[in-house]
């Protein structure tokens, strides 16, 4: 069996982290190819549901990243996001969802190297954890009728 390759989904803001990741590329810094990036306008717009949807569709780890405090393109989107994350992390931790698979970061447009390091670290960590099998998945067409048992 081939070695487990984790799938990590990164939700990033358009103005800082996405540009930062661009810089990683243009700077020719190598980083793990296991990450799938999804660009959104602002971390304030990254709904916590997206994280669950990612896990529900087979992600093994999730990164959420945006502008450093004070740098938000929309002034305070990341401050609002931070509050939401504080509560969301606590909730899913309480429910037994593995926080080692959910990572938050500030990566600016100038931090190409930080992005590479972040992704590589997260992928390594998730690789050690293995596939996130216990998380329920979206119905994928395998016949699984509910049994009353």
């Amino acid at each position, binding site marked *: 069996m081939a070695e487990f390759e984790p799938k990590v989904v990164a939700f990033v803001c358009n103005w800082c982290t996405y540009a930062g990741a661009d810089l990683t590329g243009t700077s020719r810094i190598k980083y793990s190819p296991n990450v799938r990036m999804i660009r959104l306008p602002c971390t304030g717009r990254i709904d916590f549901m997206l994280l669950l949807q990612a896990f529900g*569709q087979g992600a093994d780890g999730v990164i959420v990243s945006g502008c450093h405090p004070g740098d938000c393109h929309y002034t305070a989107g990341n401050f609002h996001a931070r509050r939401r994350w504080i509560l969301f992390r606590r909730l899913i931790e309480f429910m037994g969802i593995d926080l080692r698979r959910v990572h938050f970061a500030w990566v600016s447009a100038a931090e190409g190297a930080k992005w590479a390091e972040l992704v590589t670290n997260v992928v390594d960590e998730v690789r050690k954890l293995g596939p996130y099998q216990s998380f329920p998945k979206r*119905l994928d067409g395998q016949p699984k009728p509910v049994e*009353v048992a």
Partner: protein
Amino acid sequence: MGEQRILQKASLGELFAKLIAGGQRILAPVKSDDRVEFAAVKTPDQIAGDYIQTTTSAKTAVFPRYETMLRFRLKGKDVDVDELTPEAKPTVLFGVHPCDAASFATLKAVFTWDSADAYVEPKLEKTTIIGLSCTKGDAYCFCTSVGGGPGDTRGSDILLTPIDATKYLAEILTDKGRAIVAAAPQLFTPANGEAKEPVLAKIAPRFAADKLAQKLSALFGKTDVWLNQSLRCIGCGACAYACPTCTCFDIQDERQRYGGVRMRCWDACGFGMFTLHASGHNPRAKQSERWRQRIMHKFSYQPERLKVLGCVGCGRCSRACPTDMNLGEHMQSLAETTV
């Protein structure tokens, strides 16, 4: 009435073993925390003893909360589609109260009238019901108002009544029931005219559903009556999901990028979205109209259309209701309302 036999409680284990060896799965009421639910059992000691009703009804055995219908893979302009018809496992539903057993007539009527439903009908065919008479009821029960009773045999293939601490009076009612007996004939000993009535729960009738059915269409336009009854209803689906005869469902697709399933799941007429048109028009926009639909559907439309009552008086809806909408009480009040 059916053929009467005696079955010792102590020999249930042997019966179960025989049935399981014969390829049957046995679903029976099992205690979990403070609730009792139908679940697969191997031995009689797993079965709950002292309870009025399971929280979820026996309908889940043939009509589960959700069920996948089709699987598809999207391939460019084309799509591969597989039908997913679940295997109907031979099942014995054991310890089903007479109200729940009666509900199978309604389920059968809905899912086989005009055309047979490929998901429910095969499961109905493969299900044998061993009923268990009720020796107690509560203020939510009203089976005797809807043509049933604590020792009613309708719907059961065998009805057991615990006539004393050690034995059941077994009424063998159908061919499916006789097949169960045939699996272990020595366990079913001859009866000597034992009566079940003394141990049955006493449930006083509150209204007469057959008489009420004729009156309901005249009550339809009395909007005040429906509003007054439904004011405290908050429009959740607890009653419908707890109900053994509620069969309304939704069909939805679940998709990942290149594939997914079509599935159906329970739905409830109490939800505002239930009848909402794409245009925004809603034939039943008010909660009172949805409450009226719930009553009319069960007590007027279904009897008229499918010749079967949509209520068996189990009282689950009322026990589940967060706002204590007691169906028996509401029906009684409708019966007492002058047209």
